[in-house]
């Protein structure tokens, strides 16, 4: 019996907690927290504690699979790669590089993501590379890039214990970033003031000093009114604005009328707005955390800019215990962005449109690189529908479950000539593939993840990949070789990291040994800051002076009306993650799925004749599903909410595909629905049943 302990990083969310994996004879037997981890300090959430179940071999894909008219059949790697290579070559010959693309994974390592964008750019010669940040935080990158010059969390997790006021804006950290949420509770219990702004009464809202239960989609109206209050009362930090910002005059002009109708739009009275404005501007150190309640709107980018304006006028950026801090969902969404898995930037956010940057990468990779900007993931789906986009390589994502407007997504994928999906288990998306590749889980590979506080951490292999499974960059390299390129022929993950760090200024002083020595390094980590950076923008912004940019409220795309009288928002449950393909393998977490998935206020439930846990049908302009109702005071009247992890009743059947004009972020946080009770005792039909019975899309 050989027992071993491997220290690694939790694969489930952007907090990046430290895990010990205990193995016995190449079997994972238990998971424990790392006591000395700088963020998690000996704690884990339910997902972390259950991560042993996620890599359980049951249900794992162990061999390449090729679609035949009679279903999938097992194939050798050689055959799978030949099939992929020929199909890619044919599409490239016929329609050129804009017809192919890659969607990489915010769950995969930095090394995997670096390899994916390099395969796209240097081998396929296309900038069609994206990942799921599109549906989480692309507005963060777009917004903060304009205002501050960098789209990441400005401060660190440890700052939670060094601040006087924490503002949680449109985020539910105890569910989505549980260990950080726990830190916020701990700081609050020890006396730090806590303000929560959220339409739902979240766990933190119940504990907070103030809860502003604003109407969905009224973020900008509220923030502008806060800024107006601050300016009217001269509570701003004039010295800071003078020294470090530009654009105060137009901002002041833009918020001058911010009180008009604000109580009606937001549902918050002026007295409360004033109280929050005072608390935030007068706090000597105040820290903002925000999440998808800011980003998942058609006004996502502007919402982020508005928050940035608020922080800047109060001088709350650039010191410990302050800052504007996006809580990014997936374990490595920060890294996937840093690695340039975005259609418009190379690693380190160096713009494709910038000739110097293109030359730099072209020189390093010794090949000409495409100029034409790439398509986003939603752009690829659209182009697939009209036939101009024909081959897609996708891994570690289940867009059929997690993307808005499932039915469109399914249709788009079915139009492709070639869909390659690399996965651990048969997800709904993998079921649609032409070739399925067996991927290695986080416990079976090495590399790095970058957590939400920009900490690059070492992921270590504890187990051999099962069957013929391979790590992502390894099979990406095999595809490159199939196309006659040795661009991805690295000897190991460390070699990938070395190449990436040499080309990515904010990672330039990092190496595996240096990361190990410091329990992770926070970027920027370069010659000037060789041990990393805990607080961004201490002395200056990457763009010199920060920009205050006026933004105006935009109404949500689809308000409730007579036909669809309720507004639906989405939420997450802390014990599940993404599409649930890993967390649902735990019998405990599977059991934790509530008996119903539609959360509704008691008053609405009464009006509609809906009892607690009774079956309901939910319809929007785009789809229909059935589930049971959970009657809960946590929702205000008029608003219902559904988590989005569950294939039985995927909320994305219903959500709106209207997009943020800048980032194409879909408005997942608000759409109009009608809810009706089903006959008592009726078992809600799952999506598969509904599709089979009704032939899909229509009820």
């Amino acid at each position, binding site marked *: 019996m050989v027992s071993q302990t491997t220290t690694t990083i939790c694969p489930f969310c952007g907090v990046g907690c430290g895990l010990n994996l205990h193995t016995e004879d190449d079997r994972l037997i238990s998971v424990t927290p790392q006591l000395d981890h700088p963020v998690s300090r000996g704690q*884990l959430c339910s997902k972390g504690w259950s991560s042993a179940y996620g890599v359980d071999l049951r249900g794992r894909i162990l061999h390449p699979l090729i679609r035949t008219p009679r279903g999938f059949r097992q194939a050798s790697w050689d055959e799978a790669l030949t099939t992929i290579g020929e199909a890619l070559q044919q599409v490239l010959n016929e329609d050129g590089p804009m017809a192919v693309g890659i969607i990489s994974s915010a769950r995969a390592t930095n090394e995997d993501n670096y390899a994916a964008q390099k395969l796209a750019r240097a081998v396929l010669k296309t900038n069609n590379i994206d990942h799921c940040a599109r549906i989480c935080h692309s507005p963060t990158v777009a917004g903060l890039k304009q205002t501050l010059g960098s789209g990441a969390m400005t401060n660190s997790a440890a700052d939670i214990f060094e601040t006087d006021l924490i503002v949680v804006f449109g985020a539910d950290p105890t569910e989505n970033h549980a260990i950080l949420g726990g830190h916020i509770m701990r700081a609050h219990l020890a006396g730090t003031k806590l303000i929560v702004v959220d339409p739902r009464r979240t766990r933190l809202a119940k504990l907070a000093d103030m809860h502003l239960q604003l109407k969905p989609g009224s973020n900008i109206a509220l923030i502008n009114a806060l800024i107006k209050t601050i300016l009217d009362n001269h509570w701003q930090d004039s010295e800071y604005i003078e020294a470090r910002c530009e654009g105060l005059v137009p901002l002041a002009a833009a918020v001058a009328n911010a009180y008009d109708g604000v109580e009606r739009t937001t549902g918050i009275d002026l007295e409360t707005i004033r109280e929050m404005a005072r608390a935030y501007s007068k706090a000597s150190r105040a820290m903002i955390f925000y999440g998808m309640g800011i980003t998942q709107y058609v006004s996502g980018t502007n919402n982020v800019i508005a928050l940035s304006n608020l922080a800047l006028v109060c001088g709350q950026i650039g010191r410990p215990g302050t800052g504007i801090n996006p809580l990014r969902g997936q374990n490595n969404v920060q890294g996937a962005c840093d690695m340039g898995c975005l259609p418009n930037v190379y690693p380190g956010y160096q713009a494709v449109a910038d000739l110097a940057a293109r030359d730099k990468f072209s020189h390093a990779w010794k090949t000409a690189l495409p100029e034409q900007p790439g398509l986003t993931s939603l752009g690829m789906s659209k182009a697939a529908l009209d036939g101009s986009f024909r081959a897609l390589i996708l891994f570690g994502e289940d867009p059929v479950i997690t993307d808005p407007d499932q039915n469109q997504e399914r249709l788009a994928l079915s139009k492709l000539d070639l869909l390659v999906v690399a996965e651990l288990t048969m997800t709904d998306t993998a079921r649609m593939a032409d070739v399925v590749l067996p991927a290695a889980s986080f416990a079976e590979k090495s590399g790095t993840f970058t957590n939400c506080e920009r900490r690059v951490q070492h992921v270590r292999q504890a187990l051999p990949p099962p069957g013929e499974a391979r790590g992502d960059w390894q099979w990406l390299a095999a595809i490159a070789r199939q196309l006659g390129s040795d661009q991805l022929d690295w000897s190991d993950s460390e070699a990938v990291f070395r190449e990436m760090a040499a080309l990515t200024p904010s990672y330039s002083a990092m190496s595996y040994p240096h990361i190990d020595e410091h329990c992770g390094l926070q970027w920027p980590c370069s010659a000037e800051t060789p041990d990393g950076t805990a607080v961004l923008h201490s002395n200056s912004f990457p763009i010199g002076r920060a920009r205050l940019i006026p933004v105006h409220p935009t109404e949500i795309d689809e308000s409730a009306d007579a036909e669809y009288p309720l507004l639906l928002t989405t939420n997450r449950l802390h014990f599940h993650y993404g599409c649930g393909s890993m967390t649902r393998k735990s*019998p405990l977490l599977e059991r934790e799925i509530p008996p119903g998935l539609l959360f509704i206020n008691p008053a609405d439930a009464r009006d509609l004749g809906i009892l607690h846990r009774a079956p309901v049908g939910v319809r929007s302009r785009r789809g229909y599903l059935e589930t049971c109702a959970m009657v809960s005071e946590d929702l205000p009247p008029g608003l219902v909410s559904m988590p989005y992890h569950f294939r039985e009743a995927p909320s994305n059947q219903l959500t709106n595909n209207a997009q943020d004009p800048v980032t194409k972020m879909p408005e997942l946080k608000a759409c109009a629905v009608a809810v009706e009770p089903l006959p008592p005792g009726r078992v809600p039909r799952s999506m598969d049943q509904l599709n089979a019975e009704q032939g899909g899309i229509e009820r």
Partner: protein
Amino acid sequence: MMSCYLLDTLERLHSHLARVYQIVQPLEDVGQSAPPLVSPKGYFFAEQENLFVFDGECFRETLPQPPPFVLFGVQSCDLTAIAYQDQFFARDPYYQARRQQALLVGIDCVTPCEHGFCASVDAGPGVKAGCADLILHARPEGGWMLMVCSDKGGEAIRGMELDQMDDTELRARDRRIDDCIAAFPDDSHLHRGIAAISQGRVPDQQWQQLGIQCLGCSGCTTLCPTCSCYGTRDLSEDQGDIRRQRFWDSCLYESFQREASQHNPSEEAGERVRRFWTHKFGDNFAKTFGRYGCVGCGRCEQTCPGVIGVHSVMRRIADYAPDDDV
């Protein structure tokens, strides 16, 4: 009366025991003050284990058959917990199959650890004779006292040729343990909290308030050495066999007590938190097991992301204790 010997080095005991036993040492360093992050309960009550396999016709036993092993250097809190689990799992063949094979070598604590309070709940810091086969005690002047407290322990060290030590040494050990007890920080919140719980004086509203903070992570129940709840599931194997597996469960999960009808007597998080602490400090449990369910290891305080580990909870409820119970 225990016999007590002088042991010059731990290695000597180690290599003697290794002739018969596989050595398992849960502590990084025998003699460190804090207990290991994970309690040793998993050595007997496995985190996941098969109960049987059904091949369509017959049930096949899957009783574990571990070789004899020694848990070398277990602190008093964890040994007290093992004694408690021995009662709980007295008739559980899977637990007993492992437990029968084990020799327990305890180690006395002589300095308090960060969150621990064994002394407040009669579970340490000195190892009690009934809880171990052998006990080690570090002598300040060098070497170790080795106390034999069971026949199995005596058998295990037979042939080691050790010098017997006299009562003065045992008295010195008691003094050092008393000094350690005196060095623990103020524990009045614990006594008051226990009184409040065991007399049912904590109002529901207070439990609900604490319940808001429970993230249902299962950290406390996973690390707690006396938690013993498990769930079962049937897994179908490739060859058509059905394997029944049991796995550690947590009473803090919302679904722990949810019935098939969806009815759930503890749907409220506060109710689940109350139940957990009543199991640790309720008088009914004390009657059944002869002691409280908490052995004062402090692990829940360290690992609870919701800040409702034992000290945090006790501080919040201490005020409900009756006044004369200070």
